[in-house]
C-alpha cells in the first residue's frame, strides 16, 4: 500500500513533537512542514528531511499529501482545517478544536461533506496513566464515578507567545483545562449539565490570556468535578498533572510527580523523566508508548480502516463547549447551563 503523505503546519513545540512521532509511523511519510518565517521553517525541514513552505495555498496544491496535521495557534485551526478538507485532505488538528462553537461546527460539517477523517489531538487519552484510569473505570473498579478533581499546571508558556494572547489561544481555561474536561467527560460518560468557574489573570497582568482557572462541572446524573488549570506557577515548577476520582465502589488517584521513574539531579538542575514523555531521543525513546505517536497512529488507523476517530470533531466540540461555558460563567459570576448559546 502507498504511504500516506503528511504535511505538518507549525513547527513550534507541538509541531516538532509531531514531526518526531510521524517518523515512526511506517504507513506515513512526512513530505512538508509549513511556518510563517521561511528561514526558520527551512531549518526544521532540513532536520526532518522534508520540504519547507511558508505559503499554505502552495502546500495544499501538492497531490502527494493526504493528511494535514495542524499544530498552529488555535485561532487558525478552522481556516486551515476547512481549506484542507475542501481540498480532500484528512485533517488532524491540535486541541482545542477551535475557539468558537461556530468554527467547530463548520469544521465538523466540512469533514462530513468532504468525506474525510477529522481528529482533534486530545492526547491525554493516549497517556499511559490516563489509559490505565479509563481501563479501571471501564472494568467497574470504582462503580459509578461521582466526584473528581484534576490539577494541571506549570509556568506560563512564554516559549510560545501566542498562548499569552487570548484571541489566539483562548487562555488557560480553554487551552489547558480542556485536556481534563475532555478526559472527565470520557470517564463520566455523561452530558454536562452546568458549569461554574473562576477564570483570572492572577500573576500575568500584562497579557490578555487568563493564567488561572477553577472550573466546577456538574454532570447530568449528579456527578461533580473540579478542574484546576494554572499557568500561574513559578518558573521552575515542574509540569504537574494530578487526577482523582471517587466512585460508588472505589477511588483512583494519579499524580505524575509522584510516579517519576527516572530522576536526574546535577549541580545545576533537578529533573524527572518518564520514558513516554522524554524529550525525543531515538536510542531510548520507546515510541510505541509515546502518547503523540499513539494518537497519530490511531488517526492513521481510522483512515486506513474507515473508522471514526476516538476524539472526532463532534467529541472535541463537547469539551470546547464546557470550556467556553467556563469563560461565560466567570464573566457572569453565575453557573452556566449547557447547551451553550453563542452570541
Amino acid at each position, binding site marked *: 500500500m502507498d504511504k500516506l503523505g503528511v504535511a505538518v503546519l507549525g513547527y513550534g513545540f507541538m509541531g516538532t513533537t509531531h514531526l518526531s512521532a510521524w517518523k515512526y509511523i511506517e504507513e506515513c511519510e512526512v513530505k512538508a512542514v509549513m511556518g510563517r518565517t521561511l528561514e526558520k521553517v527551512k531549518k526544521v525541514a532540513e532536520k526532518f528531511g522534508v520540504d519547507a513552505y511558508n505559503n499554505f495555498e502552495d502546500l495544499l496544491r501538492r497531490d502527494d499529501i493526504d493528511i494535514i496535521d495542524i499544530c498552529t495557534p488555535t485561532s487558525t485551526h478552522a481556516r486551515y482545517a476547512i481549506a484542507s478538507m475542501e481540498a480532500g485532505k484528512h485533517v488532524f488538528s491540535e486541541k482545542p478544536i477551535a475557539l468558537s462553537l461556530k468554527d467547530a461546527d463548520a469544521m465538523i460539517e466540512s469533514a462530513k461533506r468532504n468525506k474525510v477523517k477529522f481528529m482533534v489531538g486530545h492526547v491525554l487519552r493516549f497517556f499511559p496513566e490516563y489509559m490505565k484510569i479509563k481501563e479501571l473505570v471501564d472494568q467497574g473498579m470504582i462503580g459509578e464515578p461521582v466526584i473528581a478533581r484534576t490539577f494541571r499546571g506549570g509556568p506560563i508558556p512564554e516559549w510560545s507567545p501566542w498562548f499569552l494572547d487570548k484571541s489566539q489561544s483562548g487562555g488557560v481555561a480553554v487551552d489547558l483545562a480542556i485536556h481534563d474536561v475532555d478526559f472527565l467527560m470520557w470517564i463520566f460518560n455523561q452530558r454536562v449539565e452546568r458549569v461554574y468557574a473562576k477564570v483570572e489573570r492572577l500573576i500575568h497582568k500584562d497579557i490578555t490570556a487568563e493564567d488561572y482557572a477553577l472550573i*466546577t462541572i456538574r454532570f447530568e446524573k449528579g456527578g461533580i468535578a473540579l478542574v484546576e488549570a494554572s499557568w*500561574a506557577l513559578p518558573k521552575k515548577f515542574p509540569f504537574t498533572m494530578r487526577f482523582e476520582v471517587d466512585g*460508588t465502589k472505589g477511588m483512583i488517584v494519579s499524580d505524575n510527580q509522584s510516579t517519576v521513574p527516572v530522576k536526574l539531579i546535577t549541580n545545576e538542575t533537578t529533573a524527572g523523566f518518564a520514558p513516554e514523555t522524554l524529550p525525543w531521543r531515538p536510542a531510548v525513546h520507546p515510541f510505541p508508548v509515546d502518547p503523540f505517536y499513539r494518537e497519530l497512529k490511531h488517526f492513521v488507523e481510522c483512515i486506513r480502516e474507515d473508522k471514526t476517530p476516538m476524539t472526532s470533531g463532534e467529541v472535541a466540540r463537547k469539551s470546547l463547549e464546557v470550556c467556553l461555558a467556563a469563560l461565560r460563567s466567570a464573566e457572569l*459570576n453565575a453557573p452556566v447551563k449547557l447547551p451553550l448559546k453563542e452570541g
Partner: protein
Amino acid sequence: MADKVRFGFLGVAHFHSESYGRAIKQLPNGEVVAVYEDDEKLGREYAQKFNIEYCKSPDELLKRDDIDAVVITSENAKHHDLAVKAAEAGKHILCEKPIAITLKQADDMVRRAEKAGVKFQTCFVMRYHSTSILVKNLIEDGTVGKILALVGTNKLNSSLPLLRDWFTQPELSGGGAVMDHTVHLADLIRWYTGSEAAEVYTEIGRNVNPKIKVEDNFLTTIRMENGVIGHIDGSWSYASGLYTWGDVTLEVLGTEGVIFLDAFRQNVYYVGMESPNDKLTWHYYGCDPDLEMVKSFIECILEDKEPVATGFDGRQGVAITLASYESAKLGKPVRPR
C-alpha cells in the same frame, strides 16, 4: 492564680472527645474530672475509660466547683444549649466544630460567653497544627508574595461518618459533609488571607455512599473580600479501603511562588502479611494538633489570653457553611451573613 485547669466533658458523641480527653491527660496542667452524655451507656463507657465521674445531667456537672472548663463534643445540634448553660455557670468553653447548626445559635453562644466573661475557643485544630502554622509563617514572611488563590481538600474516608449514627442524622448534625467539613478549610482560608468570605458557590453531587442519608460530597468555590479566590472540597468520598482516614491539603498560590501543604503527610507505611487482604496502611508520626490545641486553651485560661481560634471564628465558619447550603439550593453564589 490557679496552676491547673480542671475539665468536664459535655457530650462525647463526637469521636474527638477521645483524643481531646487523652490530650488533656497528657498535660501537667490539665485534668479531666467528669463527663455528661445524653446516651448514658456511651457516657459511662467514657467515664470508665478515663477513670472519671459520670454526671446524670449537664447541671449536675456544671454546678461542681472542681470544674473550671468544659469541652463540648456532643452532637452539633446540642452545642448551643450546652454552651449557654456552661457560660451561665461561669465555665470556660472549648467547643467542637461546627460550633452550631444555625447562625442564631452561634451568635447567641458567642454573645453569652462574652457576657459571662468566660473563654470560648473553637476546635479549629488546624490553627494549632505545626505544619499549617509553618505555612502561616511562610505567608507572613512574604515567601510567596501576595496571596492570590487557596485551593484545598479536607476529604474523609467514607466509612468513618457511619461509625457514629448522628453524623448522618440532619436533626443532630445539621447536615452532611458540607456541615462537617467546610469549616476547617474555610477557617484556614480566613486565617491565611486575613479576609472574610464575600461569596460562596457550592455544587453538591449525588452520593458516593447511598447508605449515607445526607450529602457526602461537595465542591465549594469562595471569593474573599480582598479578592482572593479559594476552593474547598470536604467530601466524605474517599474509598473505605484507603490507607488513611483522609487529609487536609492546601495549595497557596501567591505572586512570588506557591506552597503545597499536606498537613497529615508524615506517615510511615505498614503492610501486613497475615492474610491476602492485609493492605497498605499509613501510620502518622507528625504533630498532634489536638494536644497543641488543648495546651493553648489551658494557657489562655491560666494567663487570661484570647484564644487563637475564637468563638467569632467558629461563627464565621457556620456562616460560610450555611451560605454553601443556600448556594447549592438556589444554584447561584451566595454571600455569607
